[in-house]
């Protein structure tokens, strides 16, 4: 007597309840608050906002809590929410030259207007586990709050640009509206605006690996970290009925301008070229990787050979999105009985034909019939 398998609905409900229970963990341990996540796991929040393409610390913290610290799951939660938000317009282009800088380093000049601002960084810490953090630690107040020299802090690439040593930054073309990969499906070849959008929400680990591969010779582009800056930038919006820009608030950004070698061509003098990275919050690894990959993807435009994976735009852009990647990889968990049954049938047929042709039936074949 066989009973058909059923009860999926109850199984799902029970699984959800169990998940909520496990997310909470030991109930004698105090629950983590969104403020705690936002303040003490701030770099996780920054990554979720960047790859989730939504600047909202509170919702990103909620996503991290709900996802039990699974970053890609948190990014997915934020993206799915973002997709439902109405869009009332586009902001004015932000101006990172006007950034309230908290950290700014250049590896190309020892000093330049505005100076180097080390700021808060892991860079020169010794990676020794700190037992003091096992309990509640109360670190010393910072002696001097890192503060940039007053006045504007020109971008290193602007300084190079004045002598024509670096290609000019592309200027806005009023004829060409900036694309939007969340509103149109990406097609190839893709222009740089679309490529940068794709990389901005692309998986940090994926971009890191691709960027690294260019350094190891797969599409080498001789990069220098022209400048990395972290700080606050104001966002302005022009409401149609008002006709002038009003500030909406400020956001924290990390920007990387990579300066890369270019040998020049028959028609163009040798000059430095640019790779660009931009992300929400403090996300230095992300913007540096992004800048390396951006530059690699400009191979076609600059007349370089497209040979390495990081230069292959269709390959890079089609696989950068971790929400898409994880969905398709993990969908293998879904039932595939029907297809598998077809394959079983085919395989048995092929094996039978093979056995008949060789006139030596295998024991497997008997079992299968």
């Amino acid at each position, binding site marked *: 007597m066989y009973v058909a398998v059923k009860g*999926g609905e109850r199984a799902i409900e029970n699984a959800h309840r169990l998940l909520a229970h496990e997310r909470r963990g030991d109930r004698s341990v105090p629950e983590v608050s969104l403020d705690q996540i936002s303040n003490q796991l701030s770099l996780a929040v920054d990554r979720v906002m960047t790859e989730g393409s939504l600047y909202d610390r509170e919702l990103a913290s909620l996503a991290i809590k709900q996802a039990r610290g699974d970053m890609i799951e948190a990014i997915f939660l934020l993206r799915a929410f973002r997709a*439902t938000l109405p869009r009332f317009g586009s902001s004015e282009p932000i101006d990172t030259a006007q950034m309230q800088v908290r950290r700014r380093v250049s590896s190309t000049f020892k000093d330049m207007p505005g100076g180097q601002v080390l700021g808060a960084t892991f860079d020169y810490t010794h990676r020794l586990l700190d037992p003091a953090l096992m309990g509640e630690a109360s670190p010393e107040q910072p002696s001097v709050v890192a503060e940039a020299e007053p006045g504007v802090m020109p971008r290193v690439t602007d300084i190079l640009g004045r002598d024509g040593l670096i290609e000019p930054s592309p200027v806005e073309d009023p004829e060409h509206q900036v694309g939007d990969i969340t509103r149109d499906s990406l097609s190839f070849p893709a222009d740089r605006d679309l490529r940068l959008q794709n990389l901005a929400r692309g998986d940090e680990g994926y971009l890191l690996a691709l960027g690294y591969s260019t350094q190891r010779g797969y599409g080498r582009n001789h990069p220098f970290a022209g400048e990395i800056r972290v700080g606050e930038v104001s966002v302005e919006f022009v409401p149609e009925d008002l006709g002038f820009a009003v500030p909406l608030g400020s956001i924290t950004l990390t920007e990387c301008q990579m300066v890369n070698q270019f040998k020049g061509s028959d028609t163009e003098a040798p000059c430095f070229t640019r790779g660009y990275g931009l992300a929400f919050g403090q996300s230095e690894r992300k913007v540096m990787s992004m800048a390396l990959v951006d530059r690699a993807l400009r191979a076609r435009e600059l007349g370089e050979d497209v040979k390495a994976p990081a230069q292959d735009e269709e390959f890079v852009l089609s696989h950068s999105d971790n929400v898409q990647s994880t969905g398709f990889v993990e969908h293998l968990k879904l039932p595939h009985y*029907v297809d598998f049954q077809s394959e079983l049938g085919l395989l048995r047929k092929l094996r039978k034909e093979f056995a008949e042709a060789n006139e030596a039936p295998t024991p497997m074949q008997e079992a299968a019939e």
Partner: protein
Amino acid sequence: MNAPTYNFAYLDEQTKRMIRRAILKAIAIPGYQVPFASREMPMPYGWGTGGVQVTAAILGPDDRLKVIDQGSDDTTNAISIRKFFQKTAGVAVTTSTVNATVIQTRHRIHEAQLGAHQVLVYQVPIPEPLRFLEPRETETRRMHALAEYGLIHVKLYEDIARFGHIATAYAYPVKVNARYVMDPSPTPKFDNPKMDNCEALQLFGAGREKRIYAIPPYTTVQSLDFEDYPFEPYKHKACCALCNAADSYLDEIVTDDKGSRMFVCSDTDYCETRQAQGHRGSENASPFAESRHA
């Protein structure tokens, strides 16, 4: 905090209009893959987001929705999608194929014949039938534009040369309206003949790959083959152990670790309807209905 509020069938009306435009274009060019601005849905890519977006765009308050996965209404993902639309659209749902107006499916076409009042929505993982022969979208789009399908015929020919027959068991490519080669989604080739000259509208949604395509009613759908090696639909050598059907697609159930197996209909509604009509198979027991425990 912005408390989330959602529209009827989840998607906002502008998004639905965008999807409907893509659907209309797809119907106008049978078998052609129309790019659309797929949204992030609250379920993972690869789990039916394309089908869900198509369903959300065509669903009206008076529709009766059926969702199947592997032919069954009771597989976990089918339940999850059905509950999603119950929650976000409040539409009536059914497991009955004949009573449904919209049927969303993954990997199967149910056994009962579709009527003109019905729409079948397929979930599609890889919409491009040429993808595993040519990974680049730029190339495959050109091949479709020029109807340059030699490559896929060579693949089928190589199967014949090597195995003596075409060795594709599911996602068996078809030519729609004598023009576009189309991926029928990973349905077993057993189901291919049902697509041909079907009374119902068939819509295909691929969310991750951002493509929608369609087979309008009464359109020819030809499984690719050769004159001397015609398309052979898959046939089971067994009957359903529950309803004794000899014409349905069967799932193989492993019943012990000694090699015992039995076969039952993959289409649960078809099987249950037949059992209610008094058909009995060799292993018949009335399936335990979930509603009793709800």
